[in-house]
């Protein structure tokens, strides 16, 4: 209240009231400037002050934390009574500068405060804040041109010709109240002597609340900011800046001061009957005025905003892990630290990221790694290699592809969601075409926006026009996008990860065909995706139950039942932090990568077991990127073999998940040495698998009984059945485990209805044993417990099936997949 009152006084009258507090403050501040030393013992602000000699300089930037350090009380006074003492502080700067340099006496100086500790939101600016020093941040939405503002006027009294100097101007043109010549009583007739006046650069900008601070469903608030002196032109529209200064209310004095002096010019009033205008004039003469004030924020210092957490800048080039850490509160940092220590981090992040999407763990992992990203590199020749990971999800309609994309758009900063159908990088138009037969309208191509430094989620990628796919292709590899318009070719930066979703050509994924045959995408574009996931609407009782449960739950319960280990903000914070790591590959990991790559290549070239596509250097690059992302996920400075291993596994999974061919048990037992642990699922697509089978048939025609082969889906079904049963039994009685023979018998009993003859029974038994063997030895889903104390230890290489009847348990790490 007092503050406001004081301000009015100053504003209205320009009267200099002697203010002891402010004078004391000025003295202390000058002392601070003189005495404050940096670590080496030099006066910190001396050199800065000497710089002020230069004609274009007039502002001394002082770190507020230094003042706090020097004299807490002074800092408090400045903070609380900022508007009141500001003039005095500037005066202290002037004295300081004058003491240390030859400076023209009329030059005005200003002080600016950096490093102000706390930061207010625009929404929190209330009447309480008027006059005190605060820092606010916001996005600059509008800038006005810079123009000179009269700070202090020199007037000539038109009556006695005496000169009145230093009349302070506050936001409005203020004449002296009375001529200072005691014998002259002039109060009205003065002339401004512009040559002897002092001006300062003045600029208005408007800032607006950032999205992150905004309560949902509200319009962002904005505030007008006044910048002066060296602060002008530092903020551009679109920037996010911090402003240190104070909230002021500008009394709307014009209505009073000018009442009755100006003729009515407005169209609204003219043309009315005389008495009306008079009536209004009369009202005005009585001093009727609006009750509201103009609001503004008077800023002395502008600085670009540091990336805020949960804000929209996950990526900032000149950030380091250290600086990111410094911007966190203690609690936030502790949480990040706690997360980095989490042994189950990988899994927890996945589940927390997509709490409402059931299953599809591999896709979740892939997207997670995409958010972490690999390290962008520049080769010695200056070619830059992207670090962004691109992911493509191919799948049947209604398999929650869009939900993945929507989730990412919601979560990731600067994410763009667009549909390939209505998007085009090249043109900004689209055609509406009517299908004559079905009377359906179809839209072809539209505008595509590519976000620099973000994630671009493109739904229906396959529907995209071919030439746009080419543009995307460029974006994916060169990280730029070229737009040719009106003969001018512009190249824009588009360092973006792409998350695409595509529908298979026939509407449904055809397992009989290869991936390439299933989607309408050119090979070069396909090769730009690091990870391909295929979502198939599989018919499987376990999955169906899970899906049904999830959907019905969604509809049945209104309460939020989403379970997350970490909140969205925590993950965003963590990813921001982890992304600052630039992991280097260790020599160990290097060897491992080379090994894995060689194996992929060999298998690729080996003829019999070909992969879905040719393994090229691109896959090697992908593997590196994924490994780096993996290392980042664990906040590790180096890429270790374990990171590569996961990257390799994911890469494998992603390429050929549904292409798993029929499982041939005979072959497996033969060449289990060459096929690694991934052998079961890493294989060619069915076409090639058929070739392999044929070859095999020729080799050992006798062994290739049809019963010994089963489709992968069938194999999955049987294994799920077994695991379910085992888990059920384990739950019933924790102590007892199933014996292998018991399990086999149970299975055969289950299958009783399907078995007609003895031969079939034997075949089934044979088959189930093979399945079990595979589950135990290849997939490690079931663990064999051999009781060493009771029976003689089976020797290495022996077939345990024949010799013993071991107890079987489900691998505790195995989660029923769907």
């Amino acid at each position, binding site marked *: 209240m007092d503050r406001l009152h004081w301000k009015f006084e100053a504003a209205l009258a320009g009267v200099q009231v002697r203010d002891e507090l402010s004078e004391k403050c000025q003295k202390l501040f000058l002392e601070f400037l003189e005495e404050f030393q940096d670590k080496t013992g030099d006066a910190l602000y001396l050199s800065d002050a000497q710089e002020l000699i230069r004609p274009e300089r007039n502002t001394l930037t002082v770190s507020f934390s230094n003042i706090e350090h020097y004299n807490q009380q002074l800092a408090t006074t400045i903070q609380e009574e900022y508007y009141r003492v500001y003039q005095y502080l500037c005066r202290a700067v002037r004295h300081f500068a004058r003491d240390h340099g030859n400076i023209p006496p009329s030059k005005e100086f200003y002080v600016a405060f950096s490093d102000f500790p706390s930061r207010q939101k625009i929404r929190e600016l209330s009447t309480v804040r008027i006059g005190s020093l605060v820092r606010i941040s916001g996005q600059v939405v509008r800038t006005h041109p810079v123009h000179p503002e009269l700070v202090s006027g020199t007037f000539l009294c038109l009556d006695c010709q005496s000169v009145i100097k230093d009349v302070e101007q506050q936001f409005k043109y203020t004449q002296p109240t009375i001529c200072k010549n005691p014998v002259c009583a002039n109060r009205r007739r003065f002339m401004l002597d512009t040559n002897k006046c002092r001006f300062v650069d003045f600029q208005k900008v408007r800032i607006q609340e950032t999205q992150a601070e905004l309560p949902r469903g*509200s319009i*962002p608030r904005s505030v007008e900011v006044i910048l002066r002196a060296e602060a002008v032109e530092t903020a551009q529209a679109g920037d996010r800046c911090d402003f240190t200064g104070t909230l002021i209310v500008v009394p709307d004095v014009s209505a009073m001061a000018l009442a009755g002096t100006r003729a009515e010019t407005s169209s609204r009033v003219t043309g009315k009957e005389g008495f*009306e205008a008079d009536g209004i004039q009369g009202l005005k003469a009585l001093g009727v005025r609006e009750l509201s004030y103009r609001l503004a924020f008077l800023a002395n210092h502008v600085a670009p905003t540091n990336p805020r957490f949960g804000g929209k800048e996950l990526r900032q080039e000149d950030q380091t892990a250290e600086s990111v850490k410094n911007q966190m509160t203690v609690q936030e940092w502790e949480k990040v630290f706690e997360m980095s220590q989490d042994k189950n981090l990988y899994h927890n992040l996945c589940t927390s990221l997509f709490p409402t999407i059931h299953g599809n763990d591999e896709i979740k992992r892939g997207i997670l790694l995409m958010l972490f990203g690999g390290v962008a590199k520049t080769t010695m020749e200056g070619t830059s290699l992207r670090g962004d990971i691109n992911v493509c999800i191919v799948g049947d309609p209604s398999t929650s592809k869009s939900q993945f994309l929507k989730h990412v758009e919601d979560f990731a900063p600067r994410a763009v969601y667009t549909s390939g159908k209505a998007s085009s990088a090249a043109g900004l138009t689209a055609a509406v075409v009517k299908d004559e037969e079905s009377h359906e309208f179809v839209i072809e191509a539209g505008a595509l926006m590519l976000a620099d430094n973000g994630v671009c989620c493109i739904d229906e990628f396959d529907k995209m026009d071919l030439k746009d796919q080419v543009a995307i292709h460029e974006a994916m590899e060169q990280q730029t996008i070229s737009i040719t318009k009106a003969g001018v070719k512009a190249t824009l930066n588009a360092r973006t990860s792409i998350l695409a979703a595509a529908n298979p050509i*026939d509407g449904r994924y055809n397992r009989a065909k290869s991936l390439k045959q299933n989607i309408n995408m050119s090979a070069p574009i396909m090769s730009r995706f690091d990870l391909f996931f295929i979502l198939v609407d599989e018919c499987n009782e376990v999955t169906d*139950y899970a899906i049904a449960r999830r959907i019905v739950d*969604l*509809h049945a319960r209104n309460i939020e039942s989403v379970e997350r280990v970490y909140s969205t903000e925590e993950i965003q914070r963590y990813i921001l932090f982890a992304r600052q790591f630039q992991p280097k590959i260790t020599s160990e990991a290097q060897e491992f990568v080379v090994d894995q790559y060689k194996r992929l290549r060999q298998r690729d070239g080996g003829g019999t077991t070909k992969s879905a596509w040719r393994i090229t250097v691109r896959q090697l690059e992908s593997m590196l990127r994924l490994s780096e992302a993996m290392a980042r996920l664990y906040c590790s400075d180096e890429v270790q073999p374990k990171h590569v291993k996961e990257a390799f596994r994911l890469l494998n999974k992603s390429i050929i998940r549904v292409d798993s061919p029929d499982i041939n048990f005979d072959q497996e037992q033969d060449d289990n040495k060459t096929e690694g642990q991934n052998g079961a699922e890493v294989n060619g697509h069915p076409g090639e698998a058929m070739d392999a089978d044929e070859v095999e048939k020729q080799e050992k025609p006798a062994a290739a009984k049809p019963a010994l082969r089963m489709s992968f889906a069938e194999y999955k079904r049987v294994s799920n059945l077994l695991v379910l049963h085992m888990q059920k039994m384990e739950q019933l009685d924790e102590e007892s485990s199933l014996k292998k023979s018991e399990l086999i018998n149970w299975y055969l009993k289950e299958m009783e209805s399907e078995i007609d003859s003895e031969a079939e029974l034997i075949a089934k038994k044979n088959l189930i044993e093979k399945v079990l063997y595979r589950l135990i030895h290849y997939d490690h889903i079931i663990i064999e417990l051999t009781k060493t104390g009771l029976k003689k230890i089976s020797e290495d290489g022996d077939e345990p099936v024949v010799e013993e009847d071991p107890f079987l348990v489900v691998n505790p790490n195995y989660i029923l997949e769907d």
Partner: protein
Amino acid sequence: MPTVHDWINNPLGIVDGLFAQSNSCPDWEKKVVEYFKEKLKLNDAHTWVPSLNDVPLHYLKPNSLVKFRCMVQDMFDPEFFMGVYEMNDPTSNSKQVKCGKYKDITEGGQVDFNSRSTVTSERQTFYCVPIPGESQWNSFAGTSQARVVPSTSYVPNRHKRSYEEDDEMDTQPQQMKDGAQSSAESHGNIEPKRQETEAPSHDSFPSHCTSSLDLNFPLPGEKGPACLVKVYEDWDSFKLNDMLEVFGILSVDPALSVIADEREASSLLDPTEGMETVEEQRVHSPPASLVPRLHMLYAQPLVHNNPLLPSSCVKKPVATRTCTIHLSSVLGELASIRAELLTYLTHVLLGDSLAAEYLILHLISNVYSRRDVLPLGKFTLNLSGCPHSSPFTEHLYKVIQQLVPSSYRLCMSLHNMNNQRMVPRKDYTANRLVSGTLQLANNTSLFLDETQLEQGQLDATGVRNITALGNLISWQKVDYDFNYHQMEFSCNINVLITSEGRSLLPSDCQVHLWPTLNPPNLEEYLSAVQVAQVPSQLNKYRIYLSVARALNYTISDEITKAVEEDFVEMRKDDPQSMSAEDLHRLLDVARLLSLSHGQNTLSRDGWMKAKQLEALRISQTPQQKCVNGNEP
């Protein structure tokens, strides 16, 4: 009928009185709010308050209590003002402490800026417009009985004046009129006949306002008062696009415009002086005669804007007698009303009862919850098989308009798609949110008429509009354009698409129209069907639809299990026939079907019925022969 109510005619007197009693103890502010809340709670009290929606502005007394049923279109920056100020009275030469709350301008006299007793307070300004697309029956069936009918000067003809004329008139003469008005006011009850004859004339109004000032209505051709609502308490609880019933003090003081004009003129002279630019001026301080100020005393968020139902926020049923009768009778005979409505809609849909059934389900759909990004409960219906370029869709829209409180028909012609502004955009020069067609209040029915579409080019705006419509349908949200970024505003809009083939927009459910009737003159037939419905019958439908939509709904654990098993079973038979999406839809249909029968829990029977309904629908939907790019 009430006689003179001081609290309605002169609320400021009461405010000042309470302020004077308080001796500058700050809780007088609470007392004021309490006082008016109490007054409004009295049985029918709120119906005595004249409504800005129904009564032309110049018949309302300045500084009286009025109510306004509106939608928050924009939120301006907070405003500081002198809550308490001291004034030198020039006549008596004495100082007086005055209260500045609920006022725009000072009373006559010199304000003492140096006074110690000045208190700076904060208030928030909302730009409010009448609820977009409100149906005619809505405003005229209104509960407001206190329609001001000045006995002398009310000539319906004058209703038709444009705003331009209005504001020339109402600076000074208005105050003279006021005297006459206050005595003539609150005659209440206008005979229903009058209302009905008035309705069509209202429609034929010159929809365009010739004024240079754009009142920023979301829908083209809208009219009605826009209002600057000043909020003093709890402004953070209001959200954009909220429907509110505001009770506040009307301020139309002509001095306001003069001050504003002056500032505008002065800012032209010296740009350094004014903080606002001319454009901002125009938007933030429009002439009070055009955009009155309303100082909010009390606001009631509206869950629905169906005047036939009591607003559910009011604990006590305060509906007028007629309303309560309606309501209970509707609940009692729900089944028969549903049957009648079904018959009516079947007639409208040329004898296709299945489409009528789905239309009912659509009309009672409502986004009841959101899970992450997924809106639950939306039921966008695509009515395909509508004849191209025939009056059918227009009539269908008229029927829907008659049934729902607010609706809008968007003809998806290329011209409209390329030229209409659908997504609201922030204009930083004028510092306001420029509205667009998709800025609609909750539960508005949006009728997209794709039969109007023709082949041709969509330009950049067109593509953006199509994308916005798609997002609205799929995610029930609109991304407002803030130039530097987009901001997501969730909404709850029932979208119905009529098209010839399958719509190019996504939808939750496609029903193909199979007419069984083939009237020789379609237009005549459809008009006849509509005319056949008596108003009381229509009112029953209206209440029925609003009630059914608001019902709670649960699924018991037992049914949950059954549904899960059923799903797995269906998948076993034929996995292609039943996807996760289908289950979603089936559950939606089951929910809406149950609600439409007034059941608030899913029964086994209801589930079976939903399945049958869906099976029938799918069997009647023309098969997609190939992928045309419109897949969800």
